[in-house]
Structure formats: structure tokens, C-alpha cells
């Protein structure tokens, strides 16, 4: 029954206003539908696309979608921490380009075994710099990471001299395993994504650190007065973000064994779109790893579904736009109890 009336985000809002008048239980149902609206919309999308093209739910297609979302997904996991702590990270896109370029360059110079830890160290240093500026110096995260977006892009171009980076001997290296390999028939990128999601989900939901992240994002002043070191928490959120970015860069580099300087350009905003779709608030204090994974998968499946029914890739941009606005609108409307904002 729960699925039936709330099938589309836009439509649930209509009946909702009547429910308010009639009683508490219906309102609770409405609120539940509004909260879970994105999940319901997701299910309906899947049903719709399956009816349109029966290959949509074929195991290999699903596997393909998750695999191609894995890089975006891994980045989104880290940014989720930053967003819950009440900040933004716009530098992840160019940071990912940086780590892909660096690991490919070092691969030929010092071999993959040393290149990977070296790249992780360099990317973590960038994340630490972000964390220092936002956490300890308390600068505005939007502008700091905007500056870092530009600065890291410049750093990448300086490092590579503007050239594409390629591995010289593509046959004789095991480096491709992170992007192309399979274990027990499951592609390694999916395994990395799932493993990281499980670990970070546990960290966020079950550890004191995770609770501190929520506290800092929910009310920074209250968190400080209750003895949480806000600066340190924010610092580690950015470190977490750069750790995930380094992993994503490794997957990207390993998938194609070569990279452009701009491979991650624009991903920072797609990552945010996925997190918003999952239902996290950009004001901080809410969101979970599970929701972010759902947001990433929604983006991936919409993209894939639209391609399967024969539409061009760019149609997904327009669909994503509509879905983001509706999802957030619905969430806000449920909280304030009326559809339109009270602004005159």
C-alpha cells in the first residue's frame, strides 16, 4: 500500500495537504512517503526502465552500471563526511585528476608498488591542507575548496607539463587490476566501492568519531561546548575525503592505464548531486553512507536506463536536474508542512 500513492515526488505533495487536516496517522504516512520519496522514485524508475527494455535488469547490465558508478561513488563516500560536518569540498574533481596523473607518472618512474603509496601520501597532504584551512583556520569551506580546485588543477598541469600521461608498458604490469580485474567474477572496482562503503558506513554510524561528525555538523557551537574538538573533526573529514579521492584516482588510472589532466573535471558537482539526491542536507548534520550509495546508484541507473531506451547521454543532465529539485523540495515541504515556501 505504501508504494501506491506516493509514486512520484511531485504528486505526493498534493494529497499531503489534505492528510494534514484528517489526522495524525495519515500525516505520518505522508511524512514517511516524503522522507522515503527518493527510494520510491528509484524503485519506480527501475520498474519503468525494465518495462521499456528488459535488458535493464539483466545481471551483467546491473554489474556494468555499478562498475561505472564506482569511481564517482568512492569519491562521494568521502565527501559525505565533509558534507555531514557542515562543509563542502569542491576540490575533489581536480584532486582526482592529480592523483591519477601522479600515480601514472610514478608508475613508470619507481614502479607500481612504490607509486601507489607515494600518490596516496601526496593526495592526503592536499586533503590535510584543505582540512587545516577549513578546520583550524576556520575559513569558508566553499571558497577554500574553490581555490584549491583551481590550485590543484594548476599543480596537475605543472606536474604533467600539460601532456596526457600513459603507462609505457601496458601489457607487462599488474597495475590494471584495480580498474579492470575481477575476483570471483565480480569486478574489482565494485569490490573496492562496497568494501569502502561498508567500512566508512561503520565508522560514521558506529564509532565515536562518526557521532562527533554529526554533532559538529548539526550544531558546531554546541559540539564545542560539549568538549568536541571541532577543528580536529573537520580536519579528519577532509582527510577522509582525500583518502577516497586517492582511491578513486587509483581506480581511474588503473582502468585506462592512461589519463588526461582534466579527467576529474566537473565530478565535484556530480558528487554533490549524488549526495543531495541521497537526502543529506548541505547545512550539515544529516545524511548517511547508505543514502549516498543510493544517490550514486540512482544517478548511475538513470544514466544507463536513458541510454538503453535510446536517448542520448545528455538527456540525463536534464532528468537529474528535475529529480534533484523535486527531491530536495519534497524533503523541505515535508519538514515545513506545506508545499510552497512562506517567502512573500
Amino acid at each position, binding site marked *: 500500500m505504501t508504494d501506491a500513492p506516493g509514486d512520484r515526488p511531485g504528486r505526493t505533495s498534493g494529497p499531503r495537504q489534505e492528510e494534514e487536516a484528517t489526522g495524525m496517522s495519515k500525516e505520518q504516512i505522508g511524512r514517511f512517503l516524503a522522507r522515503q520519496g527518493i527510494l520510491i522514485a528509484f524503485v519506480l524508475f527501475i520498474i519503468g526502465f525494465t518495462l521499456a527494455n528488459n535488458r535493464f535488469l539483466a545481471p551483467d547490465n546491473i554489474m556494468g552500471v555499478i562498475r561505472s558508478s564506482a569511481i564517482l561513488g568512492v569519491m562521494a563516500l568521502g565527501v559525505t563526511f565533509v558534507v555531514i560536518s557542515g562543509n563542502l569540498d569542491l576540490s575533489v574533481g581536480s584532486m582526482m585528476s592529480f592523483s591519477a596523473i601522479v600515480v601514472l607518472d610514478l608508475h613508470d618512474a619507481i614502479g607500481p608498488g612504490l607509486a601507489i603509496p607515494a600518490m596516496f601520501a601526496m593526495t592526503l597532504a592536499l586533503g590535510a591542507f584543505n582540512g587545516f584551512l577549513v578546520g583550524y583556520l576556520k*575559513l569558508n569551506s566553499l*571558497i577554500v575548496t574553490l581555490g584549491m580546485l*583551481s590550485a590543484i588543477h594548476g599543480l596537475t598541469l605543472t606536474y604533467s607539463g600539460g601532456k596526457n600521461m600513459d603507462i609505457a608498458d601496458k601489457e607487462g604490469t599488474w597495475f590494471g587490476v584495480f580498474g579492470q580485474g575481477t575476483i570471483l567474477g565480480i569486478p574489482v572496482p565494485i569490490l573496492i566501492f562496497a568494501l569502502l562503503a561498508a567500512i566508512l558506513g561503520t565508522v560514521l554510524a558506529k564509532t565515536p568519531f562518526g557521532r562527533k561528525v554529526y554533532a559538529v555538523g548539526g550544531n558546531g557551537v554546541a559540539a564545542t561546548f560539549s568538549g568536541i574538538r571541532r577543528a580536529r573533526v573537520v580536519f579528519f573529514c577532509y582527510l577522509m575525503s582525500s583518502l577516497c579521492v586517492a582511491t578513486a584516482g587509483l581506480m581511474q588510472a588503473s582502468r585506462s592505464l592512461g589519463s588526461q589532466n582534466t579527467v576529474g573535471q566537473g565530478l565535484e558537482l556530480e558528487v554533490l548531486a549524488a549526495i543531495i539526491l541521497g537526502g543529506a542536507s548541505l547545512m550539515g548534520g544529516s545524511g548517511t553512507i547508505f543514502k549516498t550509495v543510493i544517490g550514486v546508484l540512482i544517478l548511475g541507473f538513470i544514466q544507463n536506463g536513458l541510454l538503453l531506451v535510446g536517448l542520448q547521454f545528455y*538527456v540525463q543532465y536534464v532528468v*537529474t536536474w*528535475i529529480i534533484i529539485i523535486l527531491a530536495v523540495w519534497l524533503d*523541505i515541504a515535508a519538514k*515545513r508542512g506545506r508545499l510552497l515556501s512562506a517567502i512573500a
Partner: protein
Amino acid sequence: MAPGTLSKFLKGGAIWGFIVLELIFFSVAGEFLSLSDKAFMDFDNMLLLFKQSAPIGIVAIGMTIIMINGNIDLSVGATFALCGIVLLDSMSWPIFAGLGNWVIPVAWALALLTGILLGALNGLIVWKTGVDAFIVTLGSMLGYRGLVFMYNGEQPTSHLNWTLVDFAEAQFFGLHTPTWFLIVVTAALWYLMNRTVHGRNAFAIGDNREAAINAGIRVGPHMMINFMIIGFLAALSAVVFYSESGSVNPNDGQLYELWAITAVVLGGTKLSGGSGSILATFGGVVAIQLLRKGLGHIGAGTETVNLVIGLILIAVLFLDRQLNIKGKEALRV
């Protein structure tokens, strides 16, 4: 001298001081490092600088009023590209075939109208749904980009009209056409923000939205008007830029919003709204363009520009906070 005057002066004049510093630095460094024997402070070079900064500058001026209003617009790059496509494509529409060169003002009007509509759509969503402008325009950044692609696939849209190109490259009273557009836009919006009721209300809304509502200011329409203005300006920027270049790539205008925001922040406008200055943004635009040209002049690669601008942005934020910290006695959190 009243307390605080010095820091206020430092903040207000900082961007101009920075520009002077840049000029001195690049002139001196250019003497030793530059490969060309022309001076950096060459008059033609400076004219070119204003011309080149016009497209971003026009958008940045618009971004200033959006940010003073307490909002942000991430969709300007996509609006820019879409209006560029409308401008160039409409010139080859069969219904305008009989117009001759009169098609130019028609195409301009269509492009500007498109910009106003796209801006109005953003503004309406922000107003009516109450969703934060960051999210709304993040969404429409994707959506409008999708429309750009849907218009002509992945093909570039091209149309060269030589009358138009001549106009765009012309110089009136020594200044290039794009420069005039930038100056007129700066003057008009300065007047709007400092001498009209709309401007005063926009400041009030950005400073404290609750208080503005309680004071009887209609917050929604003001925000929507500001979004229409920035849509119009993004379109105007496209008109200025594509009249000369004559070809739109569907990926054009990416990262435009970020450059515009950088210029605005360099000019000292706060993200939180309620304060800011059109003229300082103009300074920010000039400072960025000066940096680009200057680094090129002393032989640094284009890639260094991104690095330097990013670091300067962070440094400005840091200095601004240090200047502000006195007197506020902020809670140490």
C-alpha cells in the same frame, strides 16, 4: 580618525592596492624575464586587457548582486553557452532570412530573452520552493547544460556574420566594444545597487532575511529580479563573446561560475550576503586578468595561472578574516 577606519580603508581599497602591486611587480619582473621587449604597461596591452576581461567581468558583476542578496548562481556557465547557441543559430533561421543585417538585433534580443527566462526560472524555483539557491542552481547547471547538448548534439554551433564581427572588434573613442559593455554594465548595476530601492532592499535581504521579511520587504520578487538580471548578464556576456568568435562548443562556459565567484570574492564581497561592492568586483576582474597576462608576460606557463589564482583566493580569505577578527571577539570554537 575613528577606530576601525584604517581597517575599513584597507579592506575597501585592498583590491586596488593589489592591482597596483601586480602592475609594479610585472613591470619590474618583465624587465628581466620577459622575452618581448615591449613594456608590460603598454597602452595597447592595457586596452586588450579590458577587452579580454569583459565576458567574465559582466558575469562577475551580476554574481555580485546575487551574492549581496545572499544567494549564489552556479548555472551562469551553462546559461552563457545556451544563449550563445541561440544567438548564433537564430541568425540562420529561415524566418529571418529577409532581414539582412537587421537579423543581428533580433538575434541579440532572442539571446538576451533566453538568458532572462533561464534566470527567471532559477529565481522562481528559489522563491517558491524555498530550496537553497546553491542546490537549485547546481541542478540547473546540469539541466541547462543538458539543454545545450540537446540543441545541437555534440556538434559546435557556428555562424559567422562579418558585420557583427566588425562591430565586436571595433573601437569607439579608443575602447573596444566589449570594454564598453563592461563599463556600461558596471555603471548601471552600481546605480541599481546604490541609488535605488531595489538595491537597498537587496542588501537588506542578504544581511538578514528574517528582518527584511518583518520589515515588509517582499523577499521573493527581489530575489527573482536579481536572478533575471544575472541571466540577462550571462546572455549579454555570450553576446559580447560570440559576436566575435562565431562558434559555440557545447562545453563552453564550464567553470565560468567558478571564475566569476573568484573575482567577486577577490573584490571582498561576502558569501553570506548583505555586503559587497560592484566596483570592487570590477577591480577583482581586472586583477585576475592582469595576473593572467602578467604571468604570461614574464614567461610562466598558463598552468601557473590556476595555481596562483587559487592560492591568492585562499590568502585573501585568510587576510580578510584576520582584518575582521578585531572587535568581534569571536567565540573560540
